[in-house]
């Protein structure tokens, strides 16, 4: 199903976090989701000073269909510069790309509805609109009321019935940066087929959004208006964003695996500096830092500097992981918490053991950690 959470730090930067779990056939947990994807190839993003990503929740196949169509169209438009038909214009802003994506979303929905209608009745939604279809040159009127009612329901994608309708779970967040307006975000859901411009600093879609919203709302509500206008500390923001994903995962089904953290920084000189993805073990260690901080194992300054090193400075995760445990108040207890032991009954009197990645600490600190 996926979880996609967004936090805007200031006019020109933001981050998204998503998970990778999906329930195949509504019962099998599989970690194969890739729910936040950049829509622009590096060369186009570079040339146009533009970054746009699409974060989707729902059935992955549908999201991939939409992203693939949109990427293809964006590439075609770019390649046809100077030779574009009147109906097409060159995109330069997040708004432009969002409109192209919306068209592809609508096309993908229509395609599925038409496939269903063709399979059931032998006509499509255009035939339904005009009231007849043609078969082998013969005009056939669509007159049966029950057929019309049922076909209208399918064509308007108004309700979900069977697992075949899984694509109707689709929701999306289009997030990007351009020079003109800075960070912009749009929300899409299948029910009304329109793009809503996101007006707040946060947005959450997917299964755990109710939990995530509470975590991010608590963060935002601590800041007064002036602070919100100035923007949030990026390291703190990343930690809160990860915590919103982690809490959602702890309390909600269909969220799991590693997080994918996408950081968009319009102040970067080029695409490489503007668009940063932290996934794989880097994302896992970032999640561990957020957990350690939230559970009181790390001081604020230590947690922030570890996140900065990992996400913004691109330090390797192994050294950051070692520093995480070296800076932790009680590395043994932290290890147990990260392994999923219950926090009210963390095993005591367990010595610092080889499985804990502490190398750059003295024997005294090891003993101190073990004592605690």
């Amino acid at each position, binding site marked *: 199903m996926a979880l996609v959470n967004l936090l805007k730090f200031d006019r020109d930067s933001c981050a998204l976090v998503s998970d990778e779990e999906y329930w195949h056939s509504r019962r099998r947990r599989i970690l194969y989701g890739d729910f936040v994807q950049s829509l622009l190839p590096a060369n186009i993003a570079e040339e146009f000073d533009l970054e746009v990503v699409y974060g989707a929740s729902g059935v992955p196949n549908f999201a991939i269909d939409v992203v693939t169509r949109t990427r293809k169209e964006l590439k075609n438009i770019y390649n046809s510069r100077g030779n574009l038909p009147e109906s097409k214009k060159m995109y330069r802003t997040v708004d432009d790309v969002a409109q192209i994506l919306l068209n592809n979303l609508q096309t993908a929905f229509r395609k599925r509805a038409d496939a269903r209608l063709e399979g059931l009745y032998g006509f499509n939604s255009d035939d339904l609109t005009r009231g007849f279809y043609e078969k082998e040159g013969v005009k056939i009127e669509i007159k049966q009321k029950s057929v019309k009612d049922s076909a209208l329901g399918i064509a308007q994608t108004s309700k979900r019935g069977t697992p075949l309708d899984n694509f109707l779970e689709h929701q999306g967040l289009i997030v990007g940066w351009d020079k003109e307006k800075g960070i912009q975000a749009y929300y899409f859901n299948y029910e009304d087929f329109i793009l809503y411009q996101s007006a707040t600093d946060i947005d959450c879609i997917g299964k755990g959004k109710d939990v995530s919203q509470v975590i991010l709302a608590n963060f935002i509500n601590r800041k007064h208006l002036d602070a919100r206008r100035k923007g949030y500390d990026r390291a703190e923001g990343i930690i809160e964003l990860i915590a919103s994903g982690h809490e959602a995962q702890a309390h909600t089904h269909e969220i799991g695996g590693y997080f994918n953290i996408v950081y968009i920084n319009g102040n970067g000189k080029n695409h490489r500096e503007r668009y940063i993805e932290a996934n794989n073990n880097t994302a896992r260690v970032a999640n561990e830092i957020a957990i350690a901080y939230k559970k009181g194992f790390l001081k604020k300054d230590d947690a922030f500097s570890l996140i900065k090193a990992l996400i913004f400075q691109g330090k390797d995760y192994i050294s950051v992981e070692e520093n995480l445990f070296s800076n932790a108040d009680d590395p043994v207890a932290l290890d147990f918490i990260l392994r999923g*032991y219950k926090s009210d009954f963390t*095993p005591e009197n367990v010595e610092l053991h080889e499985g804990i990645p502490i190398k750059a600490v003295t024997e005294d600190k090891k003993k101190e950690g073990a004592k605690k």
Partner: protein
Amino acid sequence: MTVINAIKFNHYSGAMVCDEERTLDLKRRLCTVDKIQNIVSDEILKEQNICAFLGNTGTLSYGHELQNRIRDHIIKEYEKEKKKFDGIPENFLTVGDIAEKAYSIMCDIKHRLIDEMLMGKFGFVTKDFIQGFYKKDDKKYEITTEEILKGAEECITWKKRDEFLDRVFINLSLIAGFDPENGFQMYRMSLPHGLSEPCTTFIQSEGSGTDACDLYFSELLRRKTQAQRREGIEPVEGIIALIEATNVSLRVNIGIGGYFNIVLMDMEKERPQERAIEINDNRSKLAMEIVDSMHTGFLTEENCKDLILRLIFLNNSFEKVHKNFFKASKKPGEMGKYLRGHK
């Protein structure tokens, strides 16, 4: 959504394992459920050498009522027997008797819930529907309207699927226990299938995690000859199999989570209080980690068996086994990461 697994080691012993996760509103995860319950009192265990645990999968309130009612029933029956014989009776219920009664209570709960629903919807209950009429203020009303007949029958027989009816019908139970007449046995009771039956082999799985567990169990059974299957399974190997199957289910099934509750029954133990024990604290989590580490190649099978033997059967301390666990690992650093959820 849950998984409950049971295994027979031999004539005198066996085990059960379940998770502790509950799903609310089809999305909220809570580690709140105590799914396997002891349904025989300590007194009966001590005096009759009978033990029985019941695990229910389906609706939590349904399972809770079933467990309470069967336990109350067994205790009351025993009190009656003691009064009747003015002392400890020579024998008491078998596990099969307990299973039959449990199934009858399952049906009774179903009838009560359906009757409450029918009364609210139509103003009559199942027995009225069967006899074709009901009485209200001494006035007789025939049930003849076709739509009402169809609607009521769909509710009684689960021909109609809706949220309420699914919650009523989708309940399955597993009882594992020992009685002196028949030894260790396992029974499954299924409301959707309308049956109560003894399990045919030494392993049984129930719940939403069954499909994944069954794949693992079928591999295990394939390795055993018929003679071995009849005898049961060596306890350490058996508990490892039970934990690994539940681990597999936790990884790939929905609605499975938290610590496992590991129930061990060994009626050859001298002291009655040691015959049925439950392990559901940090030792249970450590057992999950040890077995998982063997299956991912961090531990040898031999080391895993030794650690599980000490942790589960010889009652070694958590601290000691934990230390030996990391010592025995081929790659303790990588194993530590893996246990923290790294890929």
